[in-house]
């Protein structure tokens, strides 16, 4: 671009209406328009409907129009407020632009991208062996689920069958991870409705699970434990007692939460009937996980499209009835108990055998073999320099993460690195139900509702 044309460009940019509407002029325009919420006069109807949470389309293609819009609201009576990205209760760097009338929320526009790290693109530069170190950082509260879905997708492309012990170890870790993630959610949700003690109690119980993870994987988060071909290591000695201790301790603590929050009139009043999402809305907004189940849809991938060995364990799918914030709380609280039930069964059924595939092209040889065998050394070298060569093709695998359907779409061109990786992040999809939930509520309800969706911004922005 020449100097002249660039100055012209700047001039045009400066005189654009965007610059006048935003006081600072620091925000640029994306291909989808500005990220700021504009006044009602400057917003077109589709955008306005979206911000009011009304434009919802069912999979069959029927557009639902919930109620009529108040376009006549005068600009003098409302205030556009910016919540986040540094707001204490937007769970990281979520930013919401909200139009308020008094304290009542009229429109909401979630703005994301403040934690964008380009992990999907990074995955294209990493081999399949390195891939799980990358994906584990997306949903930092449920890292094992991310590793699991990536490994399952890779294995689907490779066409390998992993040994039963690996499957059950994966299931154990993943269910414990669900417990820790839900506990963390209970903690932050308690904090958001003003119960500071709940924050600490939730963290305390999560610590039990995390110290077990540390013992097994060496790390408290971002484990890189579940890898294509199995798991990184066998369970350590004494794992049975550790897990038993966890599943014996947590139920009692859950009863304490029941006393502290579920039976607490103030908490009930804060959450019941707040942030209601109807079944139709939830389905048309592609919500999944506890957000969808709280509306009464019994959709759980562990039950409906079983992966790992979930068809061999008994558990119930917890559903709510109304889809309010309390339902989402209750669903998660009961899901912790269900996960404990699964873990208890895993303890009994854990098979013996190898914990990873005995295929030299996929699994690195044990350290001792490298000193003894030339072949092992070569395999080791090839595996860690080149990586696993995955046959051409594409695969989509979805698992039920604590937040909903976590999907991994992998395209392979036959080389050792994925041609493209896409993660269907449940938080990202669930976030778009916020405008529908928040409309008509108060600012305090908004805080309770945002946390009830349980967005993890690392996963939203990837």
């Amino acid at each position, binding site marked *: 671009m020449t100097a002249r044309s660039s100055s012209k460009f700047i001039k045009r940019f400066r005189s654009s209406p965007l610059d006048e509407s935003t006081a600072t002029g620091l925000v640029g325009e994306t291909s989808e328009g500005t990220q700021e919420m504009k006044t009602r006069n400057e917003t077109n109807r589709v955008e306005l409907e979206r911000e009011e949470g009304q434009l919802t389309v069912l999979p069959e293609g029927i557009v639902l129009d919930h109620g009529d819009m108040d376009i006549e609201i005068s600009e003098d009576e409302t205030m556009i407020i910016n919540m986040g990205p540094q707001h204490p209760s937007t769970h990281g760097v979520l930013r919401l632009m909200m139009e308020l009338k008094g304290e009542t929320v009229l429109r909401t526009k979630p703005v994301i991208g403040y934690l964008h790290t380009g992990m999907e693109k990074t995955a294209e530069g990493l081999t399949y062996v390195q891939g799980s170190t990358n994906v584990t950082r997306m949903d930092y509260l449920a890292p094992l689920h991310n590793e699991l879905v990536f490994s399952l997708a890779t294995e689907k492309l490779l066409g390998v069958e992993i040994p039963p012990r690996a499957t059950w170890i994966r299931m154990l870790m993943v269910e414990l991870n669900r417990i820790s993630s839900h506990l963390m959610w209970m903690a932050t949700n308690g904090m958001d409705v003003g119960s500071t003690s709940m924050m600490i109690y939730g963290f305390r119980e999560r610590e039990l699970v995390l110290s077990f993870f540390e013992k097994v994987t060496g790390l408290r988060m971002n484990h890189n434990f579940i890898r294509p071909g199995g798991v990184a290591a066998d369970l350590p000695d004494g794992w049975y007692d550790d897990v038993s201790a966890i599943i014996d301790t947590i139920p009692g603590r859950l009863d304490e939460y029941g006393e502290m929050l579920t039976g607490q009139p103030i908490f009930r009043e*804060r959450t019941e009937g707040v942030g209601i999402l109807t079944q139709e809305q939830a389905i048309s907004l592609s919500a999944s996980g506890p957000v969808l189940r709280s509306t009464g849809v*019994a959709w759980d991938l562990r039950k409906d499209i079983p992966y790992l060995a979930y068809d061999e364990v008994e558990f119930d799918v917890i559903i709510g009835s109304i889809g309010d914030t309390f339902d989402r709380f209750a669903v998660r609280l009961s899901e912790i108990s269900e996960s404990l039930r699964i873990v208890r069964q895993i303890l009994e059924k854990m098979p013996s055998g190898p914990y990873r595939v005995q295929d030299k092209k996929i699994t690195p040889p044990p350290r001792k073999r490298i000193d003894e065998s030339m072949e092992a050394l070569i395999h080791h070298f090839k595996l860690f320099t080149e990586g696993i060569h995955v046959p051409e093709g594409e695969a989509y695998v979805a698992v039920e993460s604590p937040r909903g359907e976590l999907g991994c779409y992998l395209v392979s061109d036959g080389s050792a690195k994925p041609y493209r990786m896409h993660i269907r992040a449940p938080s990202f999809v669930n976030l778009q139900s916020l405008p529908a939930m928040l409309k008509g509520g108060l600012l305090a309800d908004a805080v309770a509702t945002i946390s009830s969706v349980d967005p993890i911004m690392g996963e939203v922005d990837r």
Partner: protein
Amino acid sequence: MGVDPLFLGPISIGTVIIAIVKVLVAFGALMVSVMLMIWFERKLISDMQNRIGPNRAGPFGILQTLADGIKLFFKEDLIPGKSERFVFKLAPYLTLVPAFLIFTIVPIGGVVHLFGHTVELQVADPPMGILFLLAMSSVSVYGVMLAGWSSGSKYPLLGAVRASAQMISYEAAMGLSVASVVLITGSLGTRDIVTSQAGAFFGIFPKWNLIRLGIVPFLVFLVAITAELNRPPFDLVEAEQELVGGFHTEYSSIRFALFFLAEFMNTITMSAVIVTLFLGGPDGPNLGGPAFVWPILWFLIKTGAFLFFYVWVRAALPRVRYDQLMDLGWKVLIPVSLGWLLLVGAMQVSKIYGFALFAAFIVAGALMYRAIIIGRSQSSELDIITSFGSDAQRSPKTHTSRERNR
């Protein structure tokens, strides 16, 4: 001075010195107790939450507040460009000064004889003490309100709106419950209120207003001042999770510290006031030793119990929502305290009237309760029909084992 609180008679140099000493002692004691209160709150709440709490500065971290105060003092004092500068600077003092002034009317002990003067352990005992209390607590509302308004920012503005609505509505409930105390005492002076509570029914039950008035005005007053103080669960005005800090979002440095000082000073003062009004102030049995020590000790113990109560409530309860708070104030506390005031008045006139009114209240209350229940059930039926369509939609479709009872 107790005999002549407004200095209408001749003033001797001794009286002046005693007054000055009293002010200095009260000020110093209040400042130190605020420091201790902040430490106490942090330490206690951390015990309740499985944490350690402050433990670095001084023994058991007791100097932590001092360290924080010094740190804040040396921070940059930032005044936002869009703020109303004068009001912004004035607001912290408007909350701080009334907090101290209220404490001056609280009797913290009995009477001591010093150098031929009879000294009441109380900074001042004006005849209209209770009116002074109400006036001062109203002034402190202005501090919060103006702080939020003058910041020139949206979150503090929301906090200011909440503050003015919340505090004004709770002022009414608080005033009405205080009125019943005044009614039964027949005086507005705090010393009179305390002395009228001395003694005991049947030799066991203390003759405190808590018992004499029935427990209702006490409870109303307790809830009302919790809201007035912006203590959890009624701390909507600052509500960190919603309003990022509410009225003091834009404040920094020592002005920010002043707000906190005022908040904790208010907590202590109001605990002292509730002890004075309902728990007999320094009243309590003398268990030996010098006569003037025990009343002070009893006063401190009772006040400490309330301070503990506030910390406990903070650890245990979530925050109520703004509209629920207003509902509680206008629909529950004010009618209840008004009705109770009528009852206390009727009892003062004649016991027969009183019991007749009490019976009438019970009948009216039952009818009211029934009406509310019917009204609620009808409106909730309406809600369900409008927002969820038919019942068929709400029923779960596939395998489910658990459903919540509603």
